């Protein structure tokens, strides 16, 4: 048995520029019951605070709700592991919430074949992730979709900008896979959505 190994802060992410969560990897527990505490200090303050909510975001995480989240200020964050033989502190991480925004994936992706004189095309529609308040302009999301046939190796990507639909022209007949993702104006891409399938008919 020994004091705990050094825990490691792995990432902090905000899905909507309103709340955020930090996750850590526990180090070795030294063979003893070990507890973890996250502490943070704001850049303009000397006060050290403990994590306000260890439960909401699951194991080895700390959730900062709206009241505990401010923008344009650095949070200096550390995790302390403690067991009966001693303590170990993670390297500190500095985050400003505006730089860790990663939205949830878009929702309700649908794809339909639209028949027009020049031939059919596929219209893909989706909705914003529910948690992101794009309507007020508080967060701005840009969308991207990708399309391929099951047998294809490579996806073809299309940028949809701020629009929540995209018309894909000149697809050959066959069954296509479609996925959509979004990113904030300054931040990280979401995960791709689960695949939506659409069958492009023969022209004749």
């Amino acid at each position, binding site marked *: 048995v020994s004091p705990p190994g050094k825990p490691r802060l792995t990432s902090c992410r905000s899905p909507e520029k309103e709340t955020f969560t930090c996750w850590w990897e526990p180090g070795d527990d030294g063979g003893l019951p070990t507890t973890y505490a996250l502490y943070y200090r704001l*850049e303009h303050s000397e006060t050290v605070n403990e994590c306000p909510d260890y439960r909401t975001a699951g194991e080895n995480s700390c959730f900062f709700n709206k009241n505990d989240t401010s923008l*344009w200020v650095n949070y200096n964050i550390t995790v302390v592991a403690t067991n009966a033989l001693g303590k170990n502190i993670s390297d500190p991480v500095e985050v400003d919430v*505006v730089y860790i925004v990663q939205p949830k994936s878009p929702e309700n992706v649908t794809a339909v074949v639209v028949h027009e004189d020049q031939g059919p095309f596929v219209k893909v529609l989706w909705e914003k992730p529910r948690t992101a308040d*794009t309507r*007020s302009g*508080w967060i*701005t999301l840009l969308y991207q979709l990708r399309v391929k046939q099951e047998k294809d190796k490579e996806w073809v990507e299309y940028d949809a900008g701020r629009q929540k639909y995209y018309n894909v022209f000149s697809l050959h007949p066959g069954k296509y896979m479609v996925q959509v993702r979004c990113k904030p104006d300054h931040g990280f891409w979401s995960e791709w959505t689960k695949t939506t399938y659409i069958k492009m008919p023969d022209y004749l």
Partner: protein
Amino acid sequence: LNDLLERASQLSDKLHSLSTSLTNDLDSHFPPVGRVMMPRPSMCHTSSLQIPNDKDQALKVPEDELLSLARSLLLAWSDPLALLSSEASSLAHPERNTIDSKTKELQDNINSLGAGLEHVVHKMGSSSDNLSSLPFYSNSLGQDKTSRLVNFHFLLSCFRRDSHKIDSFLKVLRCRAAKKRPEMC
């Protein structure tokens, strides 16, 4: 007004992206001692400006005040960006040519955005024009090459944060103006 705010948001978006790119250029070769010497963000000359720092606060601020905040911040960066622009070409940094041209681009962009926001003020018919004064009292980045590099980086990091504030406020204004075209927000 829609089009003016759309154009303004594109410029503020560009400003922030450019400042991020410049920060990365500087970070590519930055002496470790520089990080130790870097002043704290609370030393930024704009840090005294009271701004809404979360969504609930920001959405409560009336449109003309949100616009004034963005314009006050922009105005506060006119002199410091001129200083950065005059110093960039002589920085002790291997990427100084790239840094120089991006800094000039920043300066051009804040001038265009400033002019654009003047039009927005007229279009919105804002009666109050209470811009906050945030004076910048320095006309040099320092005597030796390390101080000049550190102060350049420090000012840029202040600007990077402020340009994100400007961008956020303008995008809120853009969506308020675009109520008839909610599909863009």
